[in-house]
């Protein structure tokens, strides 16, 4: 760290000297951001913990607030809608994370080593990621249209008499949404993998080539292990963002049909901003927060163990 003290000014009054000035200025500079982050992240988190032990509908003011202890949390255990949401989140994570990352990694390796016009491919695959989720969801909604949409017309042409009704079908709604989610995130994941790949030295591959290692052997013994930090980073961020999935669900299905595609954040939205059950919504918010903490700590522990080994 640098000290920007000017020598020669030290003989001013004791209580006010350049290093004190620097400290005050330093805190003034970081004050707006610090106040913003504290009042909009950590304070609300604590506030919502408090709310989660109450029953409150916002309308009546604080006088109407009732302390209910752990009631909100015990209610969660019997709430079939919430359990469905939790189940959907787990399915969503268990499928979108591995499928998305495996496709992204394979595509990144192919684009990195085997093609011309690398940059063009980077751009093409990245485009869905920068598009507004709502706008692309509107496009997919038309593609998924049960009777006249191109997807089902194609399936019918292939001879499928009764193709799935996708977004309006309680068995397929979540699958249809997972397809969109994987599609939209793929470009991002690929770009991160590509950035990781460029950091692997070419020489390693050259010497492996001389030793007669096949492409697949090279992938197994050089690419995979050296790409591990990138893979870990992407795994954590993709798991966490799959817990937070909301935009697609809200826009396309409103959690339906019959709550078939509801997820935790959608339940928070429903309880908090449609039913105004602030306490109950806060309890669910804390479950979400704890899930994110759990995933992050597990991956940290795994990472620390691997470093030791």
């Amino acid at each position, binding site marked *: 760290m*640098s000290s*920007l003290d*000017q020598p020669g000014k030290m003989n001013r009054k004791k209580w006010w000297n350049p*290093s004190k000035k*620097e400290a*005050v200025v*330093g*805190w003034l*500079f*970081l004050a*707006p*951001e*610090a106040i*913003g*982050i504290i009042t*909009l*992240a*950590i*304070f*609300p*988190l604590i*506030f919502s913990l408090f*709310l989660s032990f109450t029953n409150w509908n916002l309308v009546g003011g604080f006088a109407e607030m009732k302390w209910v202890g752990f009631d909100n949390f015990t209610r969660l255990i019997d709430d079939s809608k919430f359990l469905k949401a939790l189940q959907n989140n787990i399915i969503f994570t268990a499928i979108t994370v591995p499928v998305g990352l495996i496709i992204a990694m394979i*595509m990144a390796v*192919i*684009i990195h080593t085997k*093609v011309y016009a690398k940059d063009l*491919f*980077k751009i*093409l*695959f*990245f*485009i*869905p990621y*920068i*598009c*507004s*989720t709502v*706008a*692309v969801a*509107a*496009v997919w*909604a*038309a*593609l998924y249209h049960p009777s006249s949409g*191109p997807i089902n017309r194609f399936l019918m042409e292939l001879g499928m008499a009764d193709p799935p009704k996708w977004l309006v079908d309680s068995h397929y709604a979540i699958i249809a949404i997972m397809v969109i989610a994987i*599609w939209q995130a793929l470009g991002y994941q690929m770009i*991160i993998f590509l*950035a*990781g790949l460029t950091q692997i030295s070419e020489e390693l591959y050259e010497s492996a080539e001389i030793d007669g290692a096949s492409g697949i052997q090279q992938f197994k013994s050089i690419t995979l292990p050296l790409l591990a930090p990138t893979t870990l*980073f992407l795994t954590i961020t993709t798991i966490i963002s799959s817990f*937070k999935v*909301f*935009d697609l669900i*809200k*826009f396309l299905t409103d959690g339906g049909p019959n709550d078939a595609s509801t997820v935790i954040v959608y339940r*928070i939205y429903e309880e908090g901003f449609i039913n105004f059950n602030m306490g109950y919504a806060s309890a669910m*918010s*804390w479950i979400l927060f704890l899930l*994110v903490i759990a995933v992050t700590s597990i991956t940290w522990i795994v990472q620390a163990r691997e470093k030791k080994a």
Partner: protein
Amino acid sequence: MNTKKFELSRWIFTVMCGALSILFIVPLVWMLSASAKLERDVMTYPIQWIPQEWNWVSNFQKVWLENVPFSLFYWNSFKLSVLATLCTLIFSSMAAFSFAKLRAPGKGIMFGLMMSFMIIPEQATLVPRFIMIKWLGLYNTHEGLILMLAFSMYFTFLMRQYMMGIQNDFIESAKIDGAGYLRIYAQIMLPLSKPILATAGIIKFIWTWNDYQNPLIFLFSKNLYPLPLGIQFFRQEYSNNVSLMMMAAVSAIIPLIIVFIVLQKQVINGITVGGVKG
């Protein structure tokens, strides 16, 4: 090794990859083509990729100039994205300057704390933030929404990393010339940090432009809607008119695709820089 054979395999992979990437963006191509069609041609099968009868101008007029105030949604999105981006750049760069270059006791702990808050999911604090905004009287205002989007530890972190790489000599010599901290920040640090400011600015702009969740919670009146809410409203109004829906989607997406293609280096850099080092 036979170079000619090697080249050939490279061409084969390029063609395969090309086919895959086209398949990949087919939904967007379909959107573009549908937006230019007559409604009765949109869902014909097999798909007419090139419209038989062009209806582009009429669709454009209906979306932009008729009863749904689409141009207002556009303006709202633009305004919100510019202001939220400016706020983030100012607050983050000020804090980053302090974290990177000023000696203030306790700032290390503050930095660690603020970094650790990044783990708190936005969605987990929606309810209390909604209540706070109501108390402040900022519910259903653009000011309230901008306040929610103005602070980002992610960008503060990126800028701090960048500023730590700027030599102290620049600052020392400015101090000898009698420059105060505000001048050092505005006239030395900011110009020297231009690359990271550009990267952060573009990414923040894109994120705000596409943000659906925050406007959904913090805005209520139709005349304040940004594009994502506008598209949702549009979908309710014109649920049976796919060509107009696609025109609306195209209108929301195209500016960003142009920005991205022009500034792809900054965008990709900004997305990866947090990832690879993190």
